[in-house]
Structure formats: C-alpha cells, structure tokens
C-alpha cells in the first residue's frame, strides 16, 4: 500500500502537466468550498482577466529560463512599468493614436529586452546582476518620469481591451494571451530559433560547436521577455484605465514562481509554455480565492514564496530522476552550470 502511494506520487511529480491539472482541480474544489461565488461565470471571467498579465509575463520568463546560462529576468516587472508609463503619456499627453502608441510601446519593450540581452550576451554580465541592475534602472525611470503619480486620460473606447468580452470571454485573454501563446509555442517547437533556445539551455558548448549562435538565441529570449512585458503593460492600462509607475512591482517573483512551478528547469534547457500557463491558473485561483475569503494580500506574497521553494525542490528531485533515467538508457546528460 505504502509503495503504491509513494509510486503514484512519484509518477505524478514526473508528469508535470497531469500533476498541475489535478492540483488545479483540487484548488478549484477547495475554493468552491470557501466561497459560494467561486463557481460563477463572473468569477471565471475575473480569473482570466486577473491572470492575463501574469500569463503573458510567464511566457517570457519561461523562455528566458529555458535559454540557460543562469538565465533569469528580474527586470520583467520594471519593463512593464516603464513601457506602460511611456504608452500612457503618448496617448494621454501627446495625442498619439492608441494603435500607434501601442506599436511604439512594443518597440520600446523589445528595446529594453535587447538592452538586457546585449549586457548579458555581448558584455558578458551574469543575467542575475544585469537584470537586477536594469530592474532598478527601469522601475526608477518609470517613477521619475511621473513623479510617482499614476497617469490616466485614455479614450473611453480603449477600455474594450481590458474590460470587454466576446462570447463571455475577456478580450485580453482571447485576443492577446491566446495568440501570444500560440505564436510563441510555434516559435519554440516549430522553428530553428526555438530549438536553438532549448539547445543553448541544455548545453551551451555543444550548441556552439554545432554552429548555433548562442548570442542570437539568448538575445531573442530576452527580447521576447520585453515584448510580453509591453503587451502586459497595455492590458493593465486598459483594465485599470490608468498606468501606475509601479504597475510591474512583484511580477518578477510571480513570473519566476509560475515558470518553475510549471516545470521549467532553473538551470535551463527544459520547460513548456503550457505548464507555465497551468501554473498561472493555479496561482491566480489561489489569489482570487484568498481575496474572496477576505485574507490580506500580503499573505499571498508569503504563500507565493513557499510555492516557489516547494516547486523548485520538486523540480530538483524530478531532474535527478531524469538524469538517472538517461544514464540508464545510455543517453548523454545535461551538465548543470554553476550559477
């Protein structure tokens, strides 16, 4: 009996997607018990609206971590704050049409991501320090630009993106998160660049010797992170109809947590976007459920920290299992780099 229990826990840990689906179902049932409002259409909509931004950022963070070399993007929230402020000031103070301002914000996001990428791949600063530096740089610039005050003054029609629905589904989920997920999944699975991102994460030297440009693959990863941060900034602005200079605060912890919980290996080379999104769903249900149960949001931070530690410990265990399996089959094993 004991063996069966341990065996099934082990099997679940190794099948991350199944594990996440079951965990999601469990959390949903629990929250349904805590609050009668949990299983309503409006609450489902709220979860999709609330989780959309984190979902986008999780895509970027996951790809950065997969690309390896100690890959991590601590500046992702700072990029969200800064692109949001620039976008809002273009629309509200400089009368730039929303679409043009949106394109400029996306361009800025790509630029900020490229700056990270250059600092990491070409100058050679470790990602941890490079993105810690730019995190403070980007988020302070957002604060300085507005003197700490939020910006508003969007045209009313702009609220459609963050507050509207089509077929009861929130627009930002249907028209931003879903297309972004499909495109990035195709990029990772179906293009040479995507395979290169995985390969440089598994073994940088092997990738280089096979003629893959490590710089190009990692640059792309950090630029994708900037891109999703800009998209997240616009969704946030439309949802709240204002842009706060600290809109991205705490998203670095949240996005890293969901990426790791979704099964992304912190040393690079392994991870799926689907896993990260299931983890976003789980974390978001937990957060809204706690809100419905009137539990103070500061606790969420602590719970998130615990989730991160448990998830990363689980991953370490799973990966060791993976190494054993590979060794048994005589396959080469990835050597985790020293971070």
């Amino acid at each position, binding site marked *: 009996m004991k063996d069966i229990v341990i065996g099934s826990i082990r099997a679940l840990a190794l099948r991350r997607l199944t594990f996440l689906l079951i965990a999601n179902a469990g959390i949903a049932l629990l929250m349904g018990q805590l609050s009668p409002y949990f299983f309503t259409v409006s609450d489902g909509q709220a979860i999709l609206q609330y989780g959309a931004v984190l979902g986008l950022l999780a895509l970027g963070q996951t790809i950065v971590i997969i690309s390896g070399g100690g890959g991590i993007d601590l500046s992702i929230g700072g990029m969200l704050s800064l692109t949001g402020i620039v976008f809002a000031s273009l629309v509200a103070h400089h009368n730039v049409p929303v679409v043009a301002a949106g394109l400029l914000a996306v361009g800025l996001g790509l630029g900020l991501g490229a700056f990270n990428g250059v600092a990491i791949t070409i100058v050679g600063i470790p990602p941890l320090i490079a993105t*810690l*530096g730019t995190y403070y740089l980007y988020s302070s610039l957002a604060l300085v630009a507005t003197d700490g005050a939020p910006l508003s003054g969007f045209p009313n029609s702009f609220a459609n993106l963050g507050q509207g629905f089509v077929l009861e589904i929130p627009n930002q989920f249907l028209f931003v998160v879903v297309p972004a997920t499909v495109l990035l999944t195709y990029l990772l699975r179906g293009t040479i660049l995507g395979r290169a991102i995985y390969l440089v994460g598994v073994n940088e030297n092997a990738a280089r010797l096979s003629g893959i440009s490590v710089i190009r693959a990692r640059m792309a990863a950090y630029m994708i992170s900037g891109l999703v941060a800009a998209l997240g900034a616009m969704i946030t602005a439309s949802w709240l109809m204002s842009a706060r200079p600290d809109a991205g605060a705490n998203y670095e912890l949240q996005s890293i947590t969901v990426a790791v919980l979704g099964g992304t290996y912190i040393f690079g080379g392994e991870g799926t976007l689907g896993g990260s999104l299931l983890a976003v769903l789980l974390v978001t249900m937990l957060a809204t459920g706690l809100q419905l149960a009137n539990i103070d949001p500061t*606790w969420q931070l602590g719970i998130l920290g615990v989730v991160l530690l448990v998830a990363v410990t689980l991953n370490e265990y799973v990966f060791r299992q993976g190494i054993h399996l590979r060794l048994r089959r005589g396959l080469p094993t990835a050597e985790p780099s020293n971070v």
Partner: protein
Amino acid sequence: LTPLARGGRRIRGLLGQRQAAIATVLATELIFFAVAAPGFATLQNIQTVLQSSSEIALLAGGMTLLIILGSVDVSVGSMLGIAAYIAGRLLVDGTSKPLVLLAVIAVGVVLGTFNGALVAFVGIPSIIVTLGTMSIFRAGVFWLLNGQFLVGIPSFSRSLAQGHLLWLPGSFAIALLVYGGLWHLLRHRVLGRRIYAIGNNEEAARLAGVNVRRTKLVSFALLGALTGLAALLYTMRVPSIEITVGQDFALLAIAAVVIGGASITGGSGSVVGTLLGVLFVGFLNNGLVIIGVPSLWELAVLGTFLLLSVGIDHTVERRRAAATRRAGREA
C-alpha cells in the same frame, strides 16, 4: 618617478589593482561632491553618512563571503525586518541589552541557516531560494507588525548608537571591527580559503576534500548573524519599525560588494574593496540629496553604477584572458 606616482604605486601594491580603481572612483566622488554640494564636506555630514552606512556595511560584509562563494542572498532586507522587529519589541519591553544582542543574532543565524540549508542540501540556486524566502520573511514582518508601526523604542538606545569613538560614530566603529574579523577570516583562516576555493571551482574544491555543503551553510549563517547585528543598529538609529523596513538593503549591499570588485560568478573579492564600495554607495546617496537630485533617481543611478562596474570588470577580464591566450600561442 615623481613622489606622487611612487605613492600611487605603493597604494596599488597595498590594495591591488581593482581596489586602487575603486579607491580612485571614491576619491573622485568625494572631491566632486565637496565642490558641488555645499555642506557635504563637514565633519557632521560625514559622521551622518558613516552612521547610516553601518547597517549596509555589516550586510555587505557578510554578502562578500557569499558572493566570493558564488552565491547571493536577496532576502537580507526582509531578514533584517524580522530581527529589527524582535529587537524593537524586546527594547520596548525593557529587556537587558546583552540579551537583546544575543536574541537578534540568534534570529539571524536561524533564518540564514534556513537559506543555507536549502542552497547546500537541496541544491537550489541561491537566487531562487532567497527570492522565495525574501517574500516569506516579508510576510513574517507583516504578521509580527499586525498592520501597525512599532513605536516607543526607548531613546537611550539611540544615544548609545549615536555615541562617538573620538570622532568615529559608534555603529561604524562596530562595523569596522567586524570588517577586521572578516578580513582575518578570509585571508588567514581555513574557512576563508575554502570559500575562495569553492567560488573558483566547486567541483575541484570538493575533490580536494573541502566540505562544500558545510562551508556554504556556515557562510549563510554568518551573514544571518551579521544581519541580526545590523538590525539592532537599525533599531537603535530609527525610532519606529514599519512594514517596509529594509526593503532596498539587499540591492545596496549587493551593489556595494560588486562595485567593490568581487566577481559575481565567485572566486574573487575582498572586504577592503567592499568597504570602499559601501562608502561609495553611502556618499553617493547623501551627495545626490544635497545637490537636489530627487530621491526617486537614487536607485536608477545605483542600478546604472552596478551595470557599469560589472560591465567594465567583465570587459577587462575578457581582454586579459584573450591577451593571455595570444601570448600562449606566440610562445
């Protein structure tokens, strides 16, 4: 050779090239602010900066060990928050001072050991562990404060921290004492040499018989102890404890260590460099405020200096490695 150049060479020999560079940068900074900021170059202002830098100095001292080891701890700010609350609570309750000191150091050691155990025994990268515990400890501060400020810390504790040793603020003298101990530890004790060895090549150190796990655990615990001491100094300096206590301390400490020349990938660094880095960061914040730069800019300026300092280090290192390779080919 002019006497100036000879003197420069002697300082270089004493400090090493990297420290000479940061010493030059620090001197330039001091001269710039002394000229540009009225009231900067007064004894009182310098004492204020030294006093308010002593907590960062203690954190950065412990952080130097971790960074040489190839690790990092971003949870020190929240850790300091918990210890500062406990120190404040005990002082309010009138507990005797030696007991308070023991209590905060014990709290720091426990929290630091928790981080260290996860890094050393589970094998999770230190940035991920401490990112997680940063939030957990912060929730702990929130729970302890219960939505209020902790006030009423007796003023005798402030006068103690504000006392001077000749002209040196008491709290900074404590920090200097700790730096002396850390310098001795890193240079002359087995533990210190093991820390350098692990940072340079963990696998080689392990094969040479170094107990890697224990060294990591002890280093994290030591940082915890210093964080506890820093929390006590903080409580003695600041009249109330609020939920955001120590929020930017981790960045300030890491920036000081890295600007002081420790390599973030491990294996090199010194407490002398870190001390210069702490002074650089402390005088930077103070000078910017005096010349009227809004405080919102502080972190942006610091982030930029962090990137510049590491960027220059890596470029120089790469040039040197390339030159060595070339020399090797020609030989």
